[in-house]
């Protein structure tokens, strides 16, 4: 079993490891406590103090508030509300639904046909970072990417049940 120290994992997260090292890590079994280490690294990288329960998406975390509620929070500090609600409903959204808007990011004729597909970009109201992109048919409901069962995960996988 390989064990990686926090500094190596920090470098992994920042994309600073040489590929050979990353490859070695990809190809071997994970350290037993990798999740907790990555959680610690995430916790030290954010400017706020709410406890991170789960990295949720690029820039997003599920955190535990002092009242034990669980909310989705951007690393800038913006809160999207209860984890059981789709955070995208509280995000800014930019829909590329015309040829002009699609051509801003694709060369002509290399992008999608707006009659068939839209590109929806979800942006953090707090810091303006692009959080997620959906490519869906026009009128398609907003996709709810991920509904984690955090309690079961902590209890059965990590063997560390969360106090409620």
């Amino acid at each position, binding site marked *: *079993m390989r064990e990686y120290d926090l500094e190596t994992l920090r470098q992994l997260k920042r994309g600073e490891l040489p590929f050979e090292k990353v*490859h070695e890590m*990809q*190809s*071997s*079994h*994970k350290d*037993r406590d990798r999740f907790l280490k990555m959680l610690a690294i995430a916790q030290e990288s954010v400017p706020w103090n709410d406890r991170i329960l789960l990295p949720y998406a690029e820039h997003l975390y599920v955190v535990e508030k002092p009242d034990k509620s669980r909310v989705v929070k951007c690393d800038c500090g913006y809160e999207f509300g209860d984890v059981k609600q789709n955070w995208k409903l509280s995000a800014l959204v930019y829909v590329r639904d015309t040829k002009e808007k699609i051509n801003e990011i694709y060369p002509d004729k290399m992008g999608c046909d707006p009659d068939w597909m839209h590109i929806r970009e979800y942006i953090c109201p707090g810091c303006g970072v692009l959080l997620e992109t959906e490519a869906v048919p026009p009128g398609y409901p907003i996709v709810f990417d991920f509904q984690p069962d955090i309690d079961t995960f902590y209890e059965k996988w990590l063997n560390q049940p969360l106090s409620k």
Partner: protein
Amino acid sequence: MTNKNTIQPRILAIDAGGTMTDTILVNEEGQFVVGKAQSNPEDESIAFINSLRDGLNYWNLTLEDAVPALASSIYSGTAMLNRLLERKGRKLGLIVTAGFEDYLRMERGIQTYLGYSYSDRLHLVTHRHNEPLVPRERIFGVRGRIDLFGSEQIPLYENEVREAVHKLIDMNVEGICVNLLHSYVNPEHEKRVKNIAQEIIRQRGADTLLFISSELYPVSQDFARLNTVLVEAYAADPSRDQFKRINRKMRELGANHELRVMASHGGTISTEAKELARTLVSGPIGGVVGAQYLAKELGFENVVCTDIGGTSFDLALITGGQFTIKTQPDIARFMLKLPLIEIDSVGAGTGSFVRLTPSSKRIEIGPDSAGYRIGVSNPVSGLSTVTINDCNVVLGYLNPDNFLGGDVKLDKERAYNAIKEQIADPLGLDVYEAAEGIISLFEDHLRNEVISRVLGKGYAPENYRLISYGGGGPVHVAGYTAGLNFEDILVPSWAAGFSAYGCACADYEYRSDKTVQAQIANLEDNITPFAETINSAWRELKDRVIEEFAKSGVKPDQVEFRHLLRVQYVGQLNDVEILFPGDEIKTAGDVQIIIDRFEEAYAKMYSRSARSPELGYLVTTAIITGVTESEKPKLPTEPLGPATPDTKYQETRLVYYKGNWEQANVYQMDHLRPGNTVYGFTIIESPNTTFVVPKGYKAYLDAHRIFHLSPE
């Protein structure tokens, strides 16, 4: 080692690794010593001289005494490969056919996972593009087109060539490589590019080097050809300066021969040779060449070569006295087009790590390894994961106080604790039981590799002898050959240095390949175009070989030429190399010989029923090899002594074998005399290897100091 100062060294083999430079000196009687020194990549000649001096110390000889007596010196090293791996080669420019400028960025899919384990090949997330040897901004496309038949379809746009050369010189490139489509059929456009480039280089007073694909590697498959030309210019050619320095040092010390380099086709070539890229890998080749030489000297034809080092298990077959050559090897994640001895390498060596899979608690060996750091039992290794070596130490097979002649002291208890904690306890096993289980899993794995390679080629172990060498081979040879009825199992007493010894056994040999694509359906056809295509290729290749030998002052009448072809059925993909017994195709009878030899080789390799003469035959490649006399080590021959070893040298220790503790006899290899037979359980130790003869086996030491292992 003993004082042999009356016997002069004759052959010198240099193995320049990244950390250590070894020199192997062989004397007239076939005895040899190994010198070692710290490598010095800046000036390899310094490390070489230090290492040579160290080796000569064993024979109480000085450099000035010994060097003039040498008959040949053979170099193999890792400098070129390291230059390639570390991307520290020349600054190059590249001219390709317009439209192909993104060759190196797109490469071939296979290059994104070459050398990976099977599971990683399936895991796309691990695949990755190579950093191009030439960045995109120094790659220029020029218009013009030669088709696959060699006819010009679009003339060369010479103005674009001029522009490209000027720009590349402006960028201060050290060399320009040229690789145009189908240049192996018709090199006219490449020649034209060369002339234009030479003219501009002269006008501008630059000293830019030129590497033209049709001159260096006139072979099909433009991407592999491009890679080969680039590797030549980027990593191989820069070594010439180092070779010159070593040669100069040797001359100063009174040598009257020139240094030769071990090449991938199994021969040695001059340091002035055109195609230096084929000296890029020489490590595992030496052993196969040595085994071939041994087979020839001892009068047998079929050998399975097995080499276990710290990181890998290398396997090669010699059949009918010949090893097989593959023409599209991959090296350092590049698909190349050059002849390389076919050696299969499995990532399982004595330094391989042993772990349990967290989910299923299955024992996993490798694919990564501790290599030269040995294992947890080596206290200075800094390692914490169990290796095969650790198991061998715990089971008593390796002597912790006599590893590498005592240079490294191993700690049995560290190994014991690591196995207990990482393997035995989680599995609920006794430590010795666990260690033996690991070793038998390891040996089963190797045995499967051996048997599948032999059976896969349509042969049976009964027709082969097996040679075991490398530091780890003799420890495990009984295990990985168990139940396979090889005709004989040979363990040379110099097993650890066998690869270097093999380099000294190599012929002074050039080999030149050219793609021809000559097709023939049957003998009723007009054979003239077929014959002429091949004959003219052979003539061209023979001139190349003559030219190469001329650089070392070897005249054509001193060279033995062989004419070879690679043939396949039309429409199939695998060509087979055959020897043509003459030097020219003159009659339909000659064509019949080619067909017969191909059919015979094909039937052996695949199966008789797979033969498909109705498809017709395609000669893909014409090949010429030229060999000239060179001195080779003699096999040591000593008078036979008594059948029983002198017991005064015998020691004992306990070893764990098949679930029991056994009393093993222990001998130092030097103390055994030719004629001696030892019975298992016996362990024979030498500074660089340990030979394990388990219960139920015996080993006979012959007059050439080669052990023969057999069931009792």
